[in-house]
């Protein structure tokens, strides 16, 4: 019978010490070490006394957490110590919101006190951004976390290059969000390091948790703009017309009209004129006609070619506008890879 009692007691002590053992590190503070030792020896009043002494001293965050955990565990197993246990666990959670107790190795009373403390606080726990790789518009980054009380939750991704709101809603319990990693206009976020920040607010209480992630963007193959329409080339805007008799013909016509007109208009009463003036100018006109006929014609605008070139230009502008539109879509189809950055890096 005595053996049996000893065995039960030993089991209870080892279970009570489980929350402390879960931390895995020995306390730095000697008083706290003595408190842990007293707790291990089931001398709970001495453990409480020493832990409180230790808290009166300068402790690191790890020792503080351990001291409050010890106090919570000790109070939980003391008569009328439940409220004190809860308050101690609240302090633990304020120091480390991610703190959990192993339900298989923790006494029920301790576990109840811890969970009660947890349910009365507004916390974001277990914020996790999953590694993912996807093409923009065809996937998203999974984000999970737990909100311990009903609260307004706002999730943001913040970097020096951009800041976007991922989600804003009222949540409680486990929250799963899918982050498309795009800007408001649908363009992918610029590559770089981002901090995913979860802000929760309920009345005057608020809490914030964050996780840094690295966003890498894959190369984008955009189409180059065209400088000419493939398979078509521009035609010269001018063309040299073939030689023609027309200049000489017109010169003959003009000189002929002037000569014939002069002959017709000459007044017979005045005798025949010497026509020196007419000859001088008419010879000049005819000579010019001959020269212009023999001369290589000057290039003249080729209306057909000009229209053809205009159509080509319009086609080129249209094609480049299409390419620009395609490039916008291609730039949005970039592959993004999101990787969480471990804390402390």
């Amino acid at each position: 019978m005595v053996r049996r009692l000893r065995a039960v007691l030993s089991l209870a002590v080892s279970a009570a010490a489980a929350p402390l053992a879960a931390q895995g590190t020995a306390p730095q503070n000697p008083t706290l070490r003595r408190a842990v030792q007293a707790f291990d020896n089931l001398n709970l009043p001495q453990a409480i006394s020493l832990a409180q002494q230790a808290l009166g001293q300068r402790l690191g965050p790890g020792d503080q957490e351990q001291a409050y955990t010890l106090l919570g565990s000790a109070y939980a197993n003391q008569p009328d110590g439940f409220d004190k246990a809860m308050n101690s666990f609240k302090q633990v959670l304020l120091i480390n919101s991610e703190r959990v107790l192993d339900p298989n190795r923790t006494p029920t009373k301790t576990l109840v006190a811890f969970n009660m403390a947890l349910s009365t606080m507004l916390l974001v726990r277990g914020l996790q951004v999953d590694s993912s790789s996807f093409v923009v518009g065809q996937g998203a980054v999974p984000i999970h976390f737990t909100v311990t009380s009903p609260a307004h939750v706002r999730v943001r991704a913040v970097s020096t290059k951009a800041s976007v709101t991922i989600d804003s809603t009222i949540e409680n319990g486990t929250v799963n969000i899918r982050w498309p990693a795009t800007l408001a206009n649908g363009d992918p976020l610029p590559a770089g390091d981002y901090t995913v920040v979860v802000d929760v607010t309920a009345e005057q209480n608020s809490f914030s948790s964050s996780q840094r992630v690295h966003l890498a963007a894959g190369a984008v193959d955009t189409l180059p703009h065209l400088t000419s329409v493939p398979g078509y080339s521009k035609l010269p805007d001018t063309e040299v017309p073939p030689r023609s008799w027309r200049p000489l013909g017109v010169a003959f016509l003009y000189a002929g009209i002037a000569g014939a007109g002069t002959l017709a208009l000459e007044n017979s009463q005045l005798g025949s004129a010497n026509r020196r003036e007419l000859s001088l100018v008419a010879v000049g006109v005819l000579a010019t006609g001959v020269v212009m006929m023999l001369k290589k014609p000057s290039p003249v605008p080729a209306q057909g070619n000009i229209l053809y070139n205009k159509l080509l230009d319009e086609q080129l502008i249209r094609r480049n506008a299409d390419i620009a539109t395609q490039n916008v879509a291609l730039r949005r189809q970039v592959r993004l890879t999101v990787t969480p950055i471990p804390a402390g890096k």
Partner: protein
Amino acid sequence: MKRALLALALCALAAPASAQFVNVGVQGVFGDYRELGPALSYNGGGLGGIAEVNWHKFSGDFQIAKINYNPSSGSAATDKFTSTQFDAHLRWFLASGVSLETGYTKRDISPDFTTQDFTAIRAGVRANYGLGPGVNLLLRGNYLAAAKFSGGGTAPFALELGLGLSVGKANNRYRFTADYEFQRIDRKTTISGTDYKVPIQQAMARVGAAIGLGR
């Protein structure tokens, strides 16, 4: 003559401010002048000038020519005279190089009454055909209306015929010009109740160079 030259110069100076293009040039002038009958015929030469303005569908020119006429060989005339002729043309472009033309012509004779001073208003058409860049042929015909003579009389039938050539740079900066003008004026005068035909005929050639100013 001085007044006419001054007007020509003023036109050339004032025009570039508002005109699209202005040409000014100097010309050597040759003339053949006949009046009354074969016995009164003269020929001679002299100098002339031109200022031409183009503005949208309008164009115009002022020409002046001073010719020293001498009796031609075989002529019974004995007196020399100087003819100073001022011409103004104003044109409105219709289409295909054809323009309506109007204007004024005035010929002063010195000494007075050697032959007839003459003024008239002209109205007609002008055709301009481009043989190539900077090369143009001109043909014009005008009726000379409201003719007046220093010795009196009328000219119900008075015509003018012109042939021109312009060769120069395509931008119109420099041009060689040649212009032929033939006038037939059937002047009639009445002395003591009797009508007399006193026809006048002049052929004139202007050969020169012009420069383009303005835009």
